[in-house]
């Protein structure tokens, strides 16, 4: 049965042990086969860049605050098999992973958006753990 809102909130907070201070992060989501990268937790909106990537933009400044990379294991690593060599153990650098779909992009504006996301990910050396947790 689904929980009501109050029970749900209380039980979730018990389960996860409270809130952590925000730090930039990249997380592989096994149920969606996607990687979510967040540079900030300020309010943002998402805009689909192409079939591979959705970019997150600050509501206040329109600056890139993150991105989602879709179909990572089921599609991206099959379509761009060379990316597999970039996986170090079970970790992958997000900036490197994004070069796969970038290489298949011809549109100038889309390329520039990829570059903005890649630059941000590289600056923070964000990595995602590809093993399911």
């Amino acid at each position, binding site marked *: 049965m689904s929980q009501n809102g109050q029970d749900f909130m209380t039980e979730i907070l018990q389960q996860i042990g409270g809130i952590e201070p925000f730090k930039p992060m990249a997380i592989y989501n096994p*149920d969606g086969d996607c990687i979510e990268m967040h540079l900030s937790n300020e309010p943002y909106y998402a805009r689909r860049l192409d079939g591979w990537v959705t970019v997150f933009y600050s509501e206040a400044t329109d600056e890139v605050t993150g991105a989602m990379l879709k179909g990572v294991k089921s599609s991206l690593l099959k379509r761009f098999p060379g990316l597999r060599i970039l996986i170090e153990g079970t970790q992958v650098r997000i900036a490197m992973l994004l070069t796969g779909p970038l290489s298949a992009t011809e549109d100038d504006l889309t390329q520039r958006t990829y570059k903005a996301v890649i630059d941000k990910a590289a600056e923070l050396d964000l990595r995602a753990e590809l093993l399911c947790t």
Partner: protein
Amino acid sequence: MAENADETTRRFTLEAISPDQNSMIDVLVPLHRLQWAKRMGLGAIHEINTSVRHVLRYPDAIFCGINRDGDDDRGQTEGWLCYCGAPAARYDYQTGKLIFRGERVLLVYVNREFTFYNSRWEPESKVECGIPLDMGLPSDPDGKRFKERLR
């Protein structure tokens, strides 16, 4: 399923209208999504508890099948669902306080195992003079995002 509920892990679900819209179903909220919320801030937990819950129950639209560019993953997202809606307000992840929704809609993604795996706010479909022409729908300029609209 990626995370399995063991004896010490609670299983969290939210009620959703079924894809055929004839009944209500339970959608699993996986532990990794709660861990994401823990890292994003209190507002992210409020969002799952309130905004995501609302959209799953009272969607303005439900889409089935999510299109990607890959030629080799056509079957991967078959049966995956996107519930769309426009809750009255949204939460600031940092503070947990309600803020203005603006011209945004909330998209809630559910895979074919009825696991909620992602939600995000996107620009609302065409807006003229501040009034959305198609309430609760995301912008989809090329019409390629989803395979089928169920509602």
